């Protein structure tokens, strides 16, 4: 499923195609079921992203984790997601619509910590900010995501080293992270081979979100024995 119009569908959704291109694409859609289906799926991604509740976390994430595992949180300023909410654009103007969905998912589940690292308002939706290469959004998204995951994992490791986290629990968490990482690797490979697949884009985004969610939940459950 890939033709010359595939990468223009998101522009079509956003209404940014030139009038002549729009007419040509609509004519193409009338004859191409694959593109119609892809268009439907992209519209669903947009709808799902719009429906996401990027609620602020019940409590500021990082200070709670830091307190529970005994590391300083002073270097990490927590900002309000609510303050950012009104500035969030929910239009998607890049072929990799799932990039925005992934970021929103991560923000929704990862909370304030990731808010520290999110780009300026609207940046994720600006044309040219994301590369046009088929899996460019993965690379772009992953840099911030990986940084967040690495720091959370480091925090968990410090919790283990300090004895606040039971070694068996850390082992289970590590095994689970390996399981998720394996799934992420598989999804990335599949997406590289079929970058136009809305399912694979969404699946990768969901799996990445799950890794962050696991770290967040595990950190929240980690006992603070005082």
């Amino acid at each position: 499923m890939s033709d010359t119009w595939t990468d223009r569908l998101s522009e079509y959704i956003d209404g940014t195609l030139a009038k002549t291109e729009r007419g040509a694409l609509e004519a193409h859609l009338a004859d191409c079921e694959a593109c119609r289906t892809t268009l439907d799926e992209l519209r669903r991604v947009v709808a799902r992203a719009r429906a996401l509740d990027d609620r602020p976390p019940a409590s500021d994430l990082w200070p709670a984790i830091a307190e529970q595992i005994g590391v300083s949180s002073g270097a990490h300023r927590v900002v309000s997601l609510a303050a950012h909410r009104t500035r969030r654009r929910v239009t998607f103007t890049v072929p990799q619509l799932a990039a925005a969905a992934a970021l929103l998912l991560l923000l929704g589940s990862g909370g304030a910590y990731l808010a520290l690292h999110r780009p300026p308002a609207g940046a994720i939706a600006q044309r040219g900010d994301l590369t046009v290469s088929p899996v460019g959004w993965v690379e772009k998204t992953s840099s911030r995501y990986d940084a967040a995951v690495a720091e959370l994992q480091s925090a968990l490791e410090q919790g283990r080293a300090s004895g606040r986290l039971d070694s068996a629990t850390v082992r289970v968490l590590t095994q689970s992270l390996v399981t998720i990482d394996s799934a992420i690797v598989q999804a990335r490979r599949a997406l590289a081979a079929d970058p136009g697949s809305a399912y694979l884009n969404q699946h990768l985004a969901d799996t990445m979100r799950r890794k962050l969610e696991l770290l967040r939940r595990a950190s929240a459950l980690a006992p603070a024995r005082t």
Partner: protein
Amino acid sequence: MLLNIAAVITLAVAQQTDTTVPVRPGMRLDVDNFGGEIVVKAWNQNSVRVQATHSSRDRIDVQVGGSTVSIRAESRRGLAQMVEYQISAPTWMDLNLHGVSTDIDLDGVQGAVTAETVNGEVKCRGGSGQVSLKSVQGAVMLQNAKGHIDVYSVSEGLTLENVSGDISAETVSGDISLEGIESASVEVSTVSGDVTYEGSIKDGAHYHFATHNGDVTVGIPDRTNVTVSVATFNGDFDSSFPVSVTNTTKHRFNFTLGSGSGRLELETFNGDIRLRRPGNLHDKHHDQEDN
């Protein structure tokens, strides 16, 4: 011989606490435990009875506040380690239970439930309103509950039976089984495990079942009105009844049953997706029937 000595020593230092406090409707029970278990059985009395087995060095602190009964163990030497709680509480009472290396077992409760543990199983028979059950290293089982249901585990499976309301069930490594479900909103996902669903598929409702490594099997009642989206990367689709596939892409296709009012999303990266009639979910090979 060593075991016998250890048992004798344990018995020698074990202590029983048995106390009962009156409660008023609307009060909540909070229990915080490190190791051992929390067992709560509902009864029809407006009082909470706490029976605890613990070290003689520990003391069970039961505090009755304006809106809560709070139970925790305190130790004269450091932190209390192992406490086995057997608690009787009114059926209406909301429960807020937390443990570390603790099994949690609840029976007959009718109020809201929050039960979280790091290393241990969570079993709950009953519950209404907000029901949230979570464990890192332990299976989670919920029966006969209704309301907003949220169940989560990291390394074990989830089982829900005879549950109604909005449902969210998520684990990383483990199967997820749902039976006897009445719901208009079900969100289920695991990374490594099978997903099985048998319950209502309502008009206008939304159901999402996803796994990375595992099969997804769903029971579809007769005369169901739902639009089904099937996505798999390495796997097959198999239905015990005829379907007319539309909107096919490389990894996803859709079809409609009846009016297509509801929405059912089935996804597995490595695994098969099976549709069966209720009662035949575990049939590996289907016999085609008329839709």
